[in-house]
């Protein structure tokens, strides 16, 4: 018997649901929940991690992330403007920088900043200690990514905007600053959020700089606790702690985008 179109579609949908439920059932039934709970969900260990995981570890993670993001945003904007510059050497320098730093692992750059700068300038210290080092170390890499995003945003602003601004007597710089760049940033809010979330997780690389009890961040705190207690529960706690940052962030950005939609 031949099925009619809607019957065929319904049947296909039910088969997909069935397959999905089957996969989940197999995983749930096959897993050893007792051992899992013992390894990842020891309530006494969870309790022992509070409040330090929030008051120190989460706080530092947020600080490192914001520091790196701010450094990356400012430096990335400068690089983007250099790439779009009429001055050829600016374009060469910016392009070379972006290609180099996009190709290097953030871990390596962090090492170079954390240990290279003190060797190169023995008389001076990076301001802010670990905070300063990680802001610069991660920010240098983030700037390379953000520069390309911001450049694309600037180029997405219609040429007529610059022309209208110049026609009103604004200099190129004033027109960029008051007309083009504000519109470009509205365009690149989603990709920049992505970068911020990536940086949140990259801040876990701070351990290579040798953090102390005061400068520890979420992942390192989880790993240290894991070593102390010989149990994986701290990793679960650390993972959930990151979600405390990233989930509200996504929500905030959705609202920002809605607000700017009116002024586009």
């Amino acid at each position: 018997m031949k099925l009619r179109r809607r019957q065929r579609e319904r049947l296909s949908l039910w088969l997909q649901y069935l397959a999905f439920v089957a996969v989940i059932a197999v995983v749930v039934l096959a897993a050893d929940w007792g051992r899992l709970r013992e390894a990842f969900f020891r309530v006494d260990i969870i309790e022992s991690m509070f409040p330090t995981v929030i008051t120190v570890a989460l706080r530092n993670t947020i600080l490192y992330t914001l520091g790196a993001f701010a450094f990356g945003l400012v430096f990335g904007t400068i690089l983007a403007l250099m790439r779009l510059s009429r001055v050829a050497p600016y374009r060469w320098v910016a392009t070379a920088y972006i290609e180099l730093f996009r190709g290097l692992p953030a871990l390596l750059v962090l090492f170079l900043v954390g240990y290279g700068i003190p060797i190169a300038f023995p008389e001076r210290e990076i301001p802010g200690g670990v905070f300063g080092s990680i802001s610069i170390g991660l920010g240098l890499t983030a700037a390379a990514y953000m520069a390309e995003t911001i450049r694309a945003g600037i180029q997405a602003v219609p040429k007529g905007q610059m022309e209208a601004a110049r026609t009103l007597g604004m200099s190129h710089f004033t027109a960029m600053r008051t007309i083009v760049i504000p519109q470009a940033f509205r365009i690149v809010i989603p990709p920049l959020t992505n970068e911020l979330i990536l940086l949140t997780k990259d801040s876990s690389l701070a351990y290579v700089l040798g953090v102390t009890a005061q400068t520890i961040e979420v992942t390192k705190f989880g790993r240290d606790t894991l070593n102390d207690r010989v149990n994986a529960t701290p990793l679960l706690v650390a993972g959930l702690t990151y979600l405390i940052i990233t989930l509200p962030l996504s929500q905030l950005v959705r609202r920002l985008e809605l607000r700017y939609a009116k002024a586009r």
Partner: protein
Amino acid sequence: MTTSPSRPAVEIRDLHKSFGPLEVLKGIDFEVGHGEVVCVIGPSGSGKSTLLRCVNLLEEPTAGKIWVDGTEMTDPDVEIDAVRRGIGMVFQSFNLFPHLTVLDNLTIAQRRVLRRGRAEAERVARANLARVGLTDKAGAYPAQLSGGQQQRAAIARSLSMDPKLMLFDEPTSALDPELVGDVLTVMRQLAEEGMTMMVVTHEMAFARDVADRVVFMDGGVVVEQGPPREVLGAPRHERTRSFLSRVLDPTHVAQLDPPGQSAEPPTSPGLPADDRHQI
């Protein structure tokens, strides 16, 4: 900057402009007197928009000289930002700043360029909004306005800088037909107040009624110019006649173009493939 009242508002001598191998303007000589309204008409690709954009140096001429109010625009050392303050420009696509309210669109250049205080800038802005009939739209964003309202806001934005010369680049071409009238009314009112205007347009009725002089361009040269009565009413050149018959009677089929003469002139050259904001 030397300003001499005896010089015309706009003076163009042997202007050439090429985009790569494509020569768009092939030697234009042209003047606009103070208080004069000049309409430039012609088929698309004839170079009329390019000519207009050369006047305030949005396009860099390849050769020739341009003076605006006695200041040589083509002088490499011209203080271009200072000269442009006195030249308003209205674009086909309005080019309002979408991230700013209408009021801020009108005040931002007054404040950043003319260094006017907030109160004075807003006073001037509101006076000009009233002039174009948009008093109640000061707080709106451009996206909340109709095309006709956006174009009138754009005109008010230019007027807020107290220009001595206004350039209009096909100001009604992007509008729905029923919105064209409001914009043309504002422009006519401006003309009657004595503003010097250079208008690239396809609105023949506006050219006939408002212009002091009509200039017909084709193929990068000025084919003929004169009072609207002559150029539009009794054109001397065959090219003008065939253009006018196509514009005024577009569905007319009896008289086809002679073979070998393309009915459709080359399309607009577009901008050079260059995505840098280097104006």
